[in-house]
């Protein structure tokens, strides 16, 4: 059965959303192949291979433990600082490497974009998938740390799954927005690493949420990463149910941004090849 496709001048509208998502589903094999390829290429020629996914958060944990706990004496809510920091670094690194790699995904694949048609959002998505893979590898070390520090997980640890799902939505939203903007304004590529560094300090990664002054907290929690990181730590380390208020804020902001940034991405996509 032949399908008739109609191409019209681009507009910023949600009317094409079902069609765009159908196209994306049609190209799922490309999404799969490219994601596998991303992961393979990253580790193919390195001697330590997959260990790099562990080494990065591990070395950050050691440095942070030394600086912030040993030298600066930051409190870590009764858990050893090393595991306290690692539990937050894990989702943070996932977010940070997903966004920073995805931002360049379109520009670095300009030879694809100008030659072949495929739903362009696949490019940023594959970087998010590859970062998720690294996250899962690094998560095994968290298991090791929990055994070492005698942290007993409860059933509440299962909340980590929806929390990571929310985080993925937010990472996708940022990736769509930044990669599409990067096509026209190349400064984005330089600005993003800096932005992510500042952002980490605006998120309870190296310090607990309780260290933030109470009157600032309502504004502080508008950062969706606060709800994600703090609750991830809460359900894993403390075995408690998540704190729903900050989680709901994260869900709402992530989903709204994902919707808007996807529409924006598809609008930019239409004439991307002309300016890339």
């Amino acid at each position, binding site marked *: 059965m*032949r*399908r*008739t*496709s*109609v*191409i*019209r*001048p*681009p507009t910023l509208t949600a009317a094409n959303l079902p069609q765009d998502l159908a196209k994306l589903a*049609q*190209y799922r*094999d*490309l999404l*799969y*192949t*490219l994601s596998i*390829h991303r992961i*393979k*290429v990253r580790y*193919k*020629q390195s001697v330590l291979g997959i260990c790099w996914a562990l080494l990065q958060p591990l070395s950050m944990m050691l440095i942070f433990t030394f600086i912030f706990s040993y030298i600066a004496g930051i409190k870590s809510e009764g858990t050893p600082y090393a595991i306290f920091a690692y539990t937050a670094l894990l989702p943070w690194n996932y977010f940070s490497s997903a966004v920073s790699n995805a931002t360049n995904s379109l520009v670095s694949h300009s*030879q*694809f*974009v*100008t*030659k*072949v*048609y*495929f739903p362009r959002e696949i490019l940023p998505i594959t970087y998010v998938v590859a970062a998720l893979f690294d996250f899962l590898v690094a998560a095994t070390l968290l298991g090791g740390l929990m055994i070492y520090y005698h942290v007993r997980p409860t059933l509440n640890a299962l909340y980590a799954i929806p929390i990571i799902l929310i985080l993925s939505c937010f990472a996708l939203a940022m990736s769509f927005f930044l990669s599409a903007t990067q096509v026209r304004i190349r400064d984005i590529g330089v600005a993003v690493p800096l932005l992510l560094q500042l952002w980490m300090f605006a998120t309870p990664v190296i310090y607990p949420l309780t260290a933030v002054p109470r009157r600032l907290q309502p504004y502080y929690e508008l950062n969706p990463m606060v709800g994600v990181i703090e609750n991830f730590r809460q359900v894993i380390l403390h075995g408690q149910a998540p704190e729903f208020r900050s989680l709901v804020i994260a869900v709402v902001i992530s989903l709204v941004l994902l919707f808007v940034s996807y529409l924006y991405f598809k609008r930019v996509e*239409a*004439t*991307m*090849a*002309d300016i890339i």
Partner: protein
Amino acid sequence: MIDLTFDRVGKKYRIYRQSEQNRAPALVRKARELMTGWQDFWALKDVSFQIERGEAVGIIGHNGAGKSTILKLLYNITAPSRGEIRINGRLAALIEVASGFHPELTGRENVYLNGSLLGMKRREITQKLDSIVGFAGVAQFIDTPVKRYSSGMYLRLGFAIAAHLDPDVLLLDEVLAVGDAEFQAKCIERINQLKRNGKTIVFVSHNLAAVESLCDRVFLLRQGELYSTGPPRQVISEYERLLAEMPAAAKLSSVTAARAAEIVSVSIFNAAGRRTTTVATGDAMRAEVEYKVHEPVADAVIELYFYSIFGNLHCHFSTEVKGEHLRLAAGHGVIEFHCPEVLLEVASFNIEASIKHRGSAFSEHIDYKQAAFLNIGQGKPVHGMFYMPHSFTQKAVGVQQEIDS
């Protein structure tokens, strides 16, 4: 049954100029450039046509006439600014996508990567893998990283993948420029096979001979408009007439500044002395460069450069090969280059002409412009890059043979 429809399609590009206020800070300059420093350029203006199922249509025209814009729009690489395009069925482009290869991955992994990039399913690729590898002739190296491939293997593999797509509508873009003669023959056979199977084909090319042999109908584009359509022979001769008139257009394209001399036109004549745009490999050819001199030039050099459609310089004619002196007096004049035997392969060339002072750098020419267009047709057989004049004799080597056997 209509497979492709263009309904008053227009495509606008925005051309940014570097702004001239160089003393303004970079940020201000950039902002000004983004806001006002651009011009609209319509690469396609109100183009409408319909293509029937099973039809093979060739699109020809000068560089910049809008041919590749039509391909890009059909292939959904970029969206139109106006109008509507309707495509009935699965569309694929037979283009070389080897640039999408990842050097670290093996041939096999790259086939999967590129195949899915072109919209194939993994299952489909697995089924066709042997055939793709056979077509490209790289069976022995399929598990070798492609960074160890020769450039020929690279291109052949990239093309072989595209050749295994099974579309309803096929786009072709200068396909005949890939690989050696043997591989090209395979590609042409594949295209003919698709045509026999009733696929709709859109072929964009500078190679008029190929267009004529493949297509049922030809569209001639001129400055973004559909100038004429009809049977191949008729439209191609119309195009050749346009090309012959081209100097007028070329004159417009040259920068009009006060210069000592300028190129007026370049014309090509065949062995019979008739003006043409097509000569066959092995034929004689004469090129006439007409120039106009405003201030006498004591020691000038006039040259013609033959560029392939990919922008590679293939050869040149020059008035200073043996150090000859050329004095240009004020007024009109003509330089004739005589070529006893054209040795170029079957392809199309842009001819660019220059006048300069002897010994001056290329960029300091007095005048330089794209001046003509040359199509090389089938003549003496060329395998490789060009025809090398040769002959052979046979000698008896009886004694030698006895010793050998």
